[in-house]
């Protein structure tokens, strides 16, 4: 530990022209990180971390020397947390509906109070009514004055025309000029200078737009929390191995059907995971319901030529009774209860749901009903997967509005969310309330239960504001997705490729967004309807060409061209 601090101090000392703040930033990093790594990581990891940190500190030192020292607007303490001089910052963010019985504002959270104290800032939260984020967002937009910061992807989800339009309409504040080693050292370290994430932080006009965004996943932790799970006992009854190819799947599902399993495969319409996570479509190299990039060429899954093969296979499964016929109308919990009631053989669902819906109520007390995880199927053994929907990237975008009274303070505030102290606060909450430290020194997030005391519950994390998640694969497998089949799900999926997934960092222009507004709704309606009909056989595949023709008249090619243009601009960023 000491070695690490010394190394960092040396690194800092070597760059003499380093401004006070840059230096503070890197050394503070070491301090806080030391604490965190002592908590979570094994000795080996700590060593690896310290090496990494040293080089990063040296790097960032050089950068700030290049850009020249700028005067820091707010002083930082030894943890790199800025003193915001009692400034008030107003924040719009949806409120977590699980807490409505004890609180109605995040300012009641101990995490927030601690942040206010550490940063010498006053935070005021505005929340839309629970479950009415869209309406609340529009009301806020129609109001006289916007809050300083809008969180939780409000702009992306609810602003018509998206980010580009929001800047064009002068809703958002352009802070690009404020981004430098002095003002935002942590943002630069965690995102801007990261080779994988850096590109996603810009829009096509060269503006930096992702300050405060959450970093999800990491190079070693790029997986998906989606899973295809099979009842182990039913699989053993068939005498087959865990299926790898689509043909293996057909064989296994048919064998299960012959063994009397009512619904060999259950999927639902609620989370629509089998579609949105490309559960079976990735074998055919198509996205089940969205745009993707095949070798630089943007395609729309339901319009791609190979999509017909995918649908034909699903239709074959449906007709043979291998797919639960209620897949369009049943809810996620229906699917899990079919698994629990010995009616279903395999399920495609989110693995987080598995714990409350299956592991705790069923499998824990009844180990015969254990599940095994299957990888995304392929057509021929050894085929690469290109379309795993990964958790890796930026998420939970935060925006500073044009009405912000002190945008500089907002910039410092958002950057400070990346400091280890605050990042941990938001990710885990308060010790012994939001999380407990177990015998291995790992932070275990307290399972939310309404029976806990108010004080404990208000000490919980605020995931919606946090800036880091799921970056440590060992932590995920050992402490977060650690029940029953969960770690296995992650293991089988972690090597799958995601190179064809449409990049989230690509941004659309205002004109492109207008096309989307004009065509997308009708296309979605038509695709949803026809896909369901082809699968159930209500529509014959003889009409497949007519279906594609109709899509064309609905404007699908315009949208593909728009997404292509956006992708090309994204690709051309350095």
């Amino acid at each position, binding site marked *: 530990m000491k070695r690490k601090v010394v190394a960092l101090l040396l690194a800092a000392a070597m760059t003499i022209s380093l401004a006070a703040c840059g230096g503070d930033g890197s050394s503070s990093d070491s301090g806080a990180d030391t604490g965190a790594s002592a908590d979570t990581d094994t000795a080996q990891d700590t060593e690896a971390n310290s090496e990494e940190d040293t080089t990063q500190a040296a790097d960032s030192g050089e950068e700030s020397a290049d850009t020249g020292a700028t005067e820091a607007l707010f002083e930082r303490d030894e943890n790199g947390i800025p003193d915001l001089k009692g400034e008030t910052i107003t924040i719009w963010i949806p409120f977590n509906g699980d807490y409505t019985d004890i609180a109605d504002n995040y300012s009641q959270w101990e995490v927030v109070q601690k942040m206010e104290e550490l940063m010498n800032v006053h935070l005021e939260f505005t929340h839309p009514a629970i479950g009415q984020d869209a309406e609340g967002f529009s009301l806020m937009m129609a109001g006289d004055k916007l809050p300083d910061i809008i969180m939780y992807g409000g702009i992306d989800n609810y602003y018509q025309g998206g980010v580009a339009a929001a800047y064009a309409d002068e809703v958002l504040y352009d802070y690009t000029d404020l981004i430098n080693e002095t003002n935002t050292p942590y943002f630069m370290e965690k995102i801007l200078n990261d080779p994988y994430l850096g590109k996603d932080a810009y829009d096509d006009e060269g503006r930096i737009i992702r300050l405060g965004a959450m970093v999800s996943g990491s190079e070693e932790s790029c997986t998906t929390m989606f899973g295809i799970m099979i009842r182990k006992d039913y699989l053993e009854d068939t005498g087959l191995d865990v299926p790898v190819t689509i043909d293996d799947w057909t064989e296994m599902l048919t064998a299960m059907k012959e063994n009397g399993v009512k619904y060999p495969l259950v999927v639902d319409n609620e989370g629509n995971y089998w579609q949105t996570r490309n559960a079976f479509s990735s074998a055919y190299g198509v996205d089940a319901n969205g745009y993707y990039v095949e070798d630089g060429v943007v395609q729309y899954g339901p319009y791609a030529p190979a999509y017909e093969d995918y649908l034909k296979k699903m239709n074959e499964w449906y007709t043979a009774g291998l797919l639960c016929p209620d897949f*369009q109308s049943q809810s996620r919990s229906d699917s899990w209860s079919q698994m629990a009631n010995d009616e279903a053989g395999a399920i495609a669902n989110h693995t987080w749901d598995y714990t409350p819906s299956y592991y705790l109520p069923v499998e824990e007390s009844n180990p015969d009903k254990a599940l095994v995880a299957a990888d995304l199927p392929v057509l021929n053994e050894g085929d690469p997967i290109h379309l795993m929907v990964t958790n890796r990237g930026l998420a939970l975008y935060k925006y500073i509005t044009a009405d912000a009274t002190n945008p500089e303070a907002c910039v410092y505030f958002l950057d400070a969310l990346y400091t280890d102290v605050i990042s941990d606060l938001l990710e885990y909450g308060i010790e012994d309330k939001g999380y407990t430290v177990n015998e291995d020194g790992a932070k275990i997030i307290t399972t939310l239960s309404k029976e806990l005391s108010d004080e404990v519950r208000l000490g919980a994390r605020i995931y919606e504001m946090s800036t880091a998640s799921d970056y440590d694969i060992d932590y995920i497998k050992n402490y977060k997705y650690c029940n029953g089949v969960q770690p296995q799900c992650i293991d089988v999926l972690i090597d799958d490729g995601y190179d064809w997934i449409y990049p989230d960092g690509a941004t659309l222009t205002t004109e492109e967004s207008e096309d989307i507004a004009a065509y997308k*709704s009708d296309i979605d*309606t038509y695709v949803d309807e026809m896909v*369901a009909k082809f699968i159930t056989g209500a529509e014959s595949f003889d009409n497949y060409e007519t279906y594609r023709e109709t899509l064309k008249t609905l404007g699908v090619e315009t949208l593909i061209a728009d997404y292509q243009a956006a992708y090309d601009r994204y690709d051309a960023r350095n």
Partner: protein
Amino acid sequence: MKFKNFLTAFRKDLRKHAAIYIMLIPVLIYFVLFCYRPMAGLLIAFENYKPRKGIWGSDWVGLKNFINFFQSPFFWRIVKNTLWLSFGTLVFGFPFPIFFAILLNEVKNLRFKKVVQTITYLPHFITMVIICSLIIQFTNTEGFITTMVNTISSHTGALITDEKCFRAIYIISEIWQTFGWNSIIYFAAISSIDAEQYEAARIDGASRWQMMFKITLPELIPTIMILLIMQCGRIMSVGWEKAFLLQTPITYNTSDIISTYVYRQGFVEMNYSNSTAVGMFNSVVNLLLLTVANSLSKKFTESSLW
């Protein structure tokens, strides 16, 4: 002059029935706030509305949103479905409570009458979300209604995902849900019929059927007409919740109606102007239907709303 007369009369009436006018105030406020004031918002149907720019600051686009809607490949489908579901509910659903009230009125066992009434009111008090999940459960592959229908007919598979069955499911469940509650007003009307009429008829030797069709039914006609006109006025506003909760993409061909389309445009795609245009079209058609129904009723039955 006329206005002056009106004012004096009004002032006099105000002094005489002050309490009634005071009771009127909340109702007025309600209508002004929730029915008239929002009408100003219809302006956004002619704009490219952006909440930040507001109603007055957004760009005018004229009739573009309406033209887009009329040209949409789904225009005829959703109009047709809306009319189908609403006329279907009206034609099949409207007579039910009338006959129910008349028949139940003939039952002399008071206890039995009360029990039946309570049972038929019940579905009215259950929220739509629960009603709809019940319906979905019953008409899914395993649902008991599906099993029943499939045994007695050649139908196979779930009913709820069959586009041919959607209208029947919607209308039949609508009748089940509402006929008990809607019959209340007819019960009230029947109880106000002069008992002497029945007495006189009985003395003249009229049978129960004759009394039902010659006295009860004709006495109910004004009530029936008023309710019918009011129903016509709501014809385009088919309960959107129900259609939304019961529909799945595969049944869009029969289940997608104007209001679910508006929902997808407005709240899924945030396309406020477009969805306001569609909603406005809906209301205009509604108003036309109401006017037609009213004038027809005026002509044929002498009872009308205005």
